[in-house]
């Protein structure tokens, strides 16, 4: 069945071209139509094929059809004229179709028809122009003025019909979907979201509707499905679990002691080990609570401290512990309950000016210099995307304060040259941000070292980083550039957010989801 279909589709285009040529010569040209001319069925077929398939098939069909019209008996023009024109038209139509498909991710009948109409008009004009160029005595200015408008009108009238026929013949077995890279971009945004960027945003349909737990029990930031079904296999891998810490150190934010997942299993797409699980000092008995389960983000408590302090939320739950004497955080931002890292006294207060919109913002850890000018984005802000996908999540180092534990005093700061694409990096998950030996932590959150990861050129595990961006296409010689338009270097699909245009035009049955997506990528509604 499939082989039959493929064969039929491969033969459909030549067959359609031959039929078009014969019908054009024996019927259309002989018919006493008004205005003394008629449609060009071959041109219509060529543009329809180009719009339905692409530039290569379009120009091959154009050349073949044009050549057939050139040499079939009553041809009164030079051989090769129509082959040239139709070849160019087929290529152009296919190219425009591909560009539109790439930009919007889908192909609708309206855009196809528009491209086809333009191609047909260009083809008719090209026929006349080439006739003038080779000084065909038949193609006079008077004749062009007489024939060209009528021919274009006939062609345009026949466009939908021919397009329908050709698309019927060339229909793919499965409906075309949005190209995969685009989808991966969205998925990555969602992944980032579920990794903590936008805690309330979940992949629609992937989890049951969140059950409203009692207010005191509900952490705002859910990193995995605590009690409910796991988000997916991907996220199940970093379901936070508690693990004992060596050395009895107190850890404020222990990002993901993952004792279950096989090491390295999901580490390239999801935060690896060391992500976002609250550490608890070793040896402290686990307080029994209904919800949230173990490992929910919570601020640590010093070892041996009292279990609960107030009614709700319980001490240590996702609240900034303000040390005595610290300036009060203004309540406007960040919203309450959002993940906020502990701010010790003396840290710079939050800036409220930008970016607003409820973007997640975390505090700045201790000891991180704030000398960098707050151009944009301000440090500590998580930026999810920007229309056009440029400079998404771009910063030299992980944004300060974002999902990063405080390095102990004297710990080496993160290397500036990596991570490459500005991706988040959980501090301390690898060897790069390892505390120097012998220097004790200061009681703040500190990275937990999983193992001695050998230093290598490869990024340490635990980085969220995409696969390596494809190397720019090699250009053999600079001379090719005059033929080939310079392509923008292919960017990593992880490094770019989905384009606003794509999101806007994506075929989503849920307008709310689309709106959220738009808000996520920072586009206009």
């Amino acid at each position, binding site marked *: 069945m499939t082989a039959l279909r493929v064969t039929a589709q491969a033969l459909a285009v030549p067959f359609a071209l*031959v039929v078009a*040529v*014969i*019908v054009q*010569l*024996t*019927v259309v*040209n*002989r*018919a*006493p139509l008004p*205005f*003394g*001319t*008629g449609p*060009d069925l071959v041109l219509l077929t060529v543009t329809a094929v180009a719009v339905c398939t*692409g*530039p*290569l098939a379009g*120009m*091959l069909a154009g*050349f073949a059809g*044009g*050549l*057939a*019209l*050139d*040499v*079939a*008996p*009553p*041809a*009164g*023009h*030079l*051989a*090769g*004229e129509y*082959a*040239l024109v139709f*070849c*160019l038209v087929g*290529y152009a139509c296919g190219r425009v179709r591909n560009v539109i498909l790439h930009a919007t991710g889908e192909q609708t009948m309206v855009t196809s028809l528009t491209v086809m109409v333009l191609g047909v008009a260009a083809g008719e004009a090209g*026929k*006349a122009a080439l*006739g003038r160029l*080779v000084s*065909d*005595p*038949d*193609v*006079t200015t*008077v*004749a062009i003025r*007489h*024939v060209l408008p009528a*021919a274009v009108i006939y062609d345009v009238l026949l466009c939908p019909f021919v397009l329908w026929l050709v698309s019927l013949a060339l229909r793919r077995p499965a409906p075309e979907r949005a190209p995969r890279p685009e989808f991966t971009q969205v998925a990555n945004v969602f992944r980032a979201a579920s990794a903590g960027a936008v805690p309330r945003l979940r992949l629609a349909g992937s989890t049951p509707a969140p059950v409203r737990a009692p207010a005191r029990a509900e952490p705002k930031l859910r990193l995995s499905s605590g009690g409910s079904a796991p988000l997916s296999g991907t996220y199940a891998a970093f379901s936070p679990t508690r693990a004992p810490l060596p050395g009895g150190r107190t850890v404020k934010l222990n990002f993901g002691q993952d004792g279950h997942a096989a090491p390295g299993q999901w580490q390239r797409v999801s935060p690896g080990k060391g992500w976002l699980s609250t550490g608890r000092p070793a040896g402290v008995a686990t307080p029994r609570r209904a919800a949230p389960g173990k490992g929910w983000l919570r601020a640590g408590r010093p070892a041996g401290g009292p279990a609960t302090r107030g009614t709700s939320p319980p001490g240590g739950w996702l609240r900034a512990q303000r040390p005595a004497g610290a300036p009060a955080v203004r309540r406007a931002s960040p919203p309450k309950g959002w993940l906020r890292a502990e701010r010790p006294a003396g840290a710079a207060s939050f800036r409220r000016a930008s970016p607003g919109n409820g973007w997640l913002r975390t505090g700045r850890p201790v000891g991180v210099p704030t000398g960098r000018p707050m151009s944009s984005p301000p440090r500590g802000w998580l930026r999810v995307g920007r229309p056009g996908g440029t400079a998404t999540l771009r910063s030299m180092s992980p944004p300060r304060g974002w999902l990063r534990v405080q390095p102990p005093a004297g710990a080496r700061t993160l290397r500036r040259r990596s991570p490459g694409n500005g991706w988040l990096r959980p501090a301390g998950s690898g060897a790069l941000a390892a505390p120097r030996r012998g220097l004790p932590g200061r009681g703040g959150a500190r990275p937990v070292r999983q193992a001695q990861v050998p230093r290598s050129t490869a990024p340490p595990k635990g980085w969220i980083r995409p696969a390596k961006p494809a190397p720019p296409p090699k250009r053999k010689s600079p001379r090719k550039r005059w*033929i*080939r338009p310079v392509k923008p270097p292919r960017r990593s699909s992880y490094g770019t957010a989905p384009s606003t245009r794509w999101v806007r035009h994506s075929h989503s049955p849920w307008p709310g989801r689309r709106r959220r997506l738009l808000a996520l990528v920072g586009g206009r509604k």
Partner: protein
Amino acid sequence: MNEARWTRPVLIVLLVAAIALITLDFRAAGGSKAHGIGAEVFGPVERTAGAVVSPVESLIHAATGNQGAEIASLQQQNDQLRAQLSQAQISAQDQAQLTQLLRLTSASHYKVVAATVIAAGGAYSDTVTISAGSRQGIAPNETVLNGDGLVGTVTAVAGTTATVQLATDANSTVGVEVAGTGEIGALTGTGETMAAAQGLKLTLFSATATLTAGQTIVTFGSVGGRPYVAGVPIGQVTQVTSQPGSLTQTALVKPFADFTGLGVLGVVVSR
């Protein structure tokens, strides 16, 4: 599936091939081998298709062209009456010359091969394909006519088909003679649609000759009857367009043959 990689090289190859074809055909003045191959390949297919299409087309013509045929017959009557009137006016000597010429043509040693139109050219070229070729004895540069008058000349011949360039084609120039006065000139096509609108363009070689509307134009004839045999009626002068003081007389000629509804044609074949 490396379509993108192949697109540009293939495009360049195709464009170069097309330009080479154009160049070759241009150098051969439209008579390169490509046309011959195309005629051999597509000719039989067109013959078959034409055999299917022609009855339908004639039916449609008959159905849609009823009033037109009536009007045409009335006009023909009118023309005949007017011609009788003018014939009575022209000199007896001229009339004798004309009848002699026509009788000469009709009694000449020419043979006519009948063929039907099976295909027509595009919007800009006035060419048709007929269902007879070299196997029926047709050769290039032979006169094609129908019951009304001159149609054109054969330009290319394949095995079973031939291409006819109509007299309305802008490439076509016919040596003509004004019946009665004997003035000679050239008749140039203006394109089919334009011919239907205004007519063919007549240029007389003599500056002193006088042209009047209603004069009949016949072919002057070529050496050996190629491409045009003598004495085939072409059309009537409808409008004299020459400017005062111009060196040549020009006029528009309405052809007798209906070029938009050609059916059965005859090709004058020399024995």
